[in-house]
């Protein structure tokens, strides 16, 4: 049998939208098969069908040539199918080990036995270089580490067919390289892999073939070797995409944000996660904080917006001290914040899209009259943003945020925050999970904000974005700023050395 998975004519309709419309996907044994498509094209849905989370309306699935009905994830597990979801499914007050073995526990006379599991996990994490602390609690570890736990979970279950839904969205470049190696190893050992990613370079690096979806429809399956990025992007979006970020040189103006000796202490232990950080962000400039995940960038931002208490330092916004101000008052004083974790902070998943679009402004005069919500204004606002930012969903303003695709959730947050027109725009990983077309669009928006004289503070793990978008780069390592660079003159290599802590120098 050549194919391990044959999905044919899969159709899956949600009220208001055909997420998959007669889609085919055929996976060969031992291959890495990329699945490419715009945000909302139906990739996650198709994989959810394969993983037994959704029942297709029509179409057939064959595993190893035999037609099967995958009714739930257990069926999928039994067929050797494992999946790492776009949004992780971890019990967040359980430890890493507990999460990995959950549902596959070793027991002796009804008592949990950890020793075998711990040993197996240790082996796996060494074998595949997936470093995690097995006893750490999920909610205390970074998104990147949670991702590794998800991968380990699947490997722990000895799955042969591995589905990765945007696995690299939250990894650092180094980690991505490692993951790519892992994927190749896995494929060589005979595992078959489906990889959903928006990053064309990753597809070029590891994938053998690539299936492209657009708006729920099957477009094509191509051999990756011999297909250029441009061709892939064009097939996916249906038009030519510009990859290079075009922008005029920055004209920095006066200081909008001034940070002095900022320290943020860990809420769980007594260590400082951010140490004596000082910098200034000016209008008309995109200032980027670069670094490897987990070096204090998240905490720095939480400290800036008031989601984590400062143990030391001052924050000045337009010269006035906001160190003691609440999150709300800082926001009103002129901070917009695109948060790192869209589902945890950025959205109320059980609210409709239009409600989510006023999450930071519901109390403003525009949206209320004497304490009563102004539904008309809310709707108008939502419709404008949906149009402007091309937020696709099944029920427009009334779609439940939870039902929206990951990239469209992100676009909703971006639209909301950029639209507020604050003096300072803090954007943490703003393009995580977006397709190339949407990334192009968002980058343009961010540059436009800069050109309107706003200060932009960008936190990004992606070197391309760091180099292409920013006007000035600060590198953060171990909670400290270890270098300041001009993207025009610095090389990626040099940045890498600073990001990994191999070098440091003072920051003015």
């Amino acid at each position, binding site marked *: 049998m050549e194919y391990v998975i044959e999905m044919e004519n899969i159709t899956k309709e949600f009220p208001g939208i055909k997420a998959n419309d007669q889609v085919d996907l055929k996976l060969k044994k031992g291959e890495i098969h990329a699945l490419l498509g715009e945000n909302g094209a139906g990739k996650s849905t198709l994989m959810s069908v394969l993983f037994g989370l959704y029942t297709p309306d029509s179409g057939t699935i064959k595993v190893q040539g035999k037609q099967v009905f995958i009714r739930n994830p257990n069926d999928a597990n039994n067929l050797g199918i494992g999946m790492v979801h776009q949004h992780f499914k971890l019990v967040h007050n359980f430890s890493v080990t507990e999460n990995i073995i959950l549902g596959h526990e070793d027991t002796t006379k009804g008592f949990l036995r950890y020793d075998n599991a711990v040993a197996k996990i240790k082996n796996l994490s060494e074998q595949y270089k997936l470093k995690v602390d097995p006893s750490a609690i999920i909610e205390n570890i970074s998104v990147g580490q949670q991702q590794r736990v998800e991968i380990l979970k699947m490997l722990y279950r000895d799955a042969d067919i591995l589905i990765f839904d945007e696995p690299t969205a939250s990894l650092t470049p180094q980690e991505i390289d490692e993951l790519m190696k892992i994927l190749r190893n896995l494929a060589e050992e005979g595992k078959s892999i489906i990889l959903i990613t928006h990053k064309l370079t990753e597809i070029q690096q590891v994938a053998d073939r690539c299936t492209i979806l657009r708006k729920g429809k099957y477009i094509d399956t191509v051999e990756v070797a011999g297909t250029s990025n441009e061709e892939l992007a064009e097939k996916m979006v249906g038009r030519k995409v510009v990859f290079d970020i075009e922008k005029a040189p920055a004209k920095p103006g006066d200081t909008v944000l001034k940070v002095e000796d900022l320290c943020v202490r860990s809420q769980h232990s007594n260590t400082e996660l951010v140490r004596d950080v000082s910098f200034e962000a000016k209008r008309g400039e995109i200032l980027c904080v670069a670094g490897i995940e987990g070096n204090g960038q998240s905490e720095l931002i939480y400290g800036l917006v008031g989601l984590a208490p400062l143990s030391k330092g001052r924050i000045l916004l337009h010269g006035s001290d906001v160190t003691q101000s609440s999150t709300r008052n800082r926001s009103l004083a002129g901070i917009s914040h695109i948060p790192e974790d869209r589902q945890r902070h950025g959205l109320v998943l059980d609210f409709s899209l239009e409600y989510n679009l006023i999450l930071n402004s*519901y109390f403003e005069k525009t949206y209320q009259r004497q304490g009563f919500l102004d539904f008309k204004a809310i709707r108008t606002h939502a419709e404008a943003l949906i149009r402007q930012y091309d937020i696709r969903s099944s029920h427009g303003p009334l779609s*439940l945020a939870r039902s929206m695709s990951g990239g469209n959730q992100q676009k909703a947050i971006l639209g909301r925050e950029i639209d507020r027109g604050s003096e300072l725009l803090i954007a943490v990983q703003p393009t995580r999970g977006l397709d190339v077309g949407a990334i192009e669009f968002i980058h343009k928006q961010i540059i436009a904000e800069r050109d309107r004289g706003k200060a932009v503070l960008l936190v990004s793990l992606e070197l391309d974005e760091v180099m292409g978008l920013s006007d000035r780069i600060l590198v953060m390592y171990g909670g400290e700023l270890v270098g300041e660079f001009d993207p025009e003159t610095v090389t990626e290599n040099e940045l890498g050395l600073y990001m990994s802590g191999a070098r440091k120098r003072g920051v003015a």
Partner: protein
Amino acid sequence: MKFPWGGKRARGNGDGGGRIVQGALQKVAHRPASISAFSSILAIVSGLLVGFVIMLIVNPGDAVPGFLTILFGWLSEGSRSVGDMLYFGVPIVLTGLSVAFAFRTGLFNIGATGQLTMGAFTAVYIGVNWGFLGAFHWIVAVLGGMIAGAVWGSIAGLLKAFRNVHEVVSSIMLNYIAMYMNTMLIVQLIYNRQYARARSPLPSAHIPTWFLRDIFPGSSVNIGIFIAIGLTILLHIILNRTVFGYELKSVGFNRDAAKYAGMNAKRNIVLSMTISGALAGIAGAIMFLVAGRHLEPVNQLMQEGFTGIAIALLGLSAPIGVFMAGIFYGALEQGGYYLQLYDFMPEIIDIIIAVIIYFSAFSLFIQTYVAGYLRRKLGAEVELQQGTEIK
């Protein structure tokens, strides 16, 4: 059939403790109204059927007329029994609203019974002693009950907000404190030794009946029903139309996002528990500011507070749903009262209600079946919600 939530699902917020119940409430509360309402009705029907089976076993001969009495007893004496149905329903509507309101902020107020007890005592105390208030007497007594309930609820809210004590734990403890305090305070302050119970509130403190006794002659109905209707509408508006309601629901759905949006989660938690307690306090006042009903110094938790949890579930945590469920409860109580005409103990009603409570708690499962069934039949609409659990 698939049970998406059978899998492990990472939750973005909350903090241990009564999550399972909360989760259940949450799921019930945010399903599409039609399916949810349908499953509530299914819970009721199942409860009634089980009751009927029990009646068949106990006394086959009278089972059918007895069952009809349960169902239609509230109609049996015309306006009088309708009035009594409303009378029985009102406190349950109010405790149901109390639980439902807290729940919408993500809080599980299992302490309605304690808040109700404090409200009842305070109202009766004022009713017994403050006769000088004249025409305002009853109003002040109800307000007193409301404030006492609010204070009691706010304690749990404050503990949660500032000390991170789970509200389920603190309000269970507060229930017992209220129960014993009630006994102690009755004996010390308003004791009627002859009957070993609290003294009767003065007639000026009784909840007025206005014209209701003309419409429903012979019944015990009073304007508590108007208070219940008013509060139902008020809460409906607060939750669905106001900025305050938007905040409360944000905090309830996702506390982290609420913080990110600059909402004062602590304030909202305290306010929500305070309002929830106030509602239970009013229920306590309305229950005992009537002729012929007396507070007793017995160490027993008042059931109305717990029934409120079931009613909140059955009413899908939406004020209007809770109102309907509460009145339905009143109808069953009323039916049970007439059941004595036959050879049944009125306790059969308690059994039926208990079964309905169980079924409504199980309505999660029922909904899954209903959802699955409808999906196969109609293939639509349901999916949106199914998807929510697993996306």
